């Protein structure tokens, strides 16, 4: 999250919104957003509707939820999907920003 906040302007320059979805309730989101002063959209999903829709892997007996990232382009198509295999398996922002540059060039 801090990594994303650091580069939020880079995403904004690429006409991109960052939306974070998680299983916590709205109070937990509100607290965290205030504490960390986060600029992006935060969507509590305690019923796991979107989490299930997008197939986030749930490993109940292991380490909890793994992170996942999806880039949806302006036409609404999914162009990049990364499902983490561990808690720390998060793609570097540079990878996402490079892909967004490509989308903005019409690739």
């Amino acid at each position: 999250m801090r990594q994303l906040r650091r580069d939020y302007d880079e995403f904004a320059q690429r006409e991109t919104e960052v939306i974070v979805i998680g299983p916590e309730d709205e109070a937990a989101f509100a607290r965290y957003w205030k504490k960390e002063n986060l600029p992006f959209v935060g969507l509590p999903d305690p019923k796991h509707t979107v989490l299930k829709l997008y197939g986030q892997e749930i490993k109940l007996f292991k380490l909890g939820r793994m992170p996942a990232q999806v880039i949806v382009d302006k036409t609404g198509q999914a162009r990049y999907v990364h499902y983490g295999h561990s808690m720390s398996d998060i793609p570097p922002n540079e990878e996402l920003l490079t892909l967004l540059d490509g989308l903005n060039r019409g690739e």
Partner: protein
Amino acid sequence: MSKVELHVQAPDFALQDFRGQTVRLADYRGQKHVVLVFNRGFT
């Protein structure tokens, strides 16, 4: 469990943000790209 396919329409959804505003993925269509981050929990 289903997973997202590339180069097809991403599943649309609508959720309320923590301020009570409804956010719909389709609302960004034609406006912005979106990075969806499925978070593993706040630590």
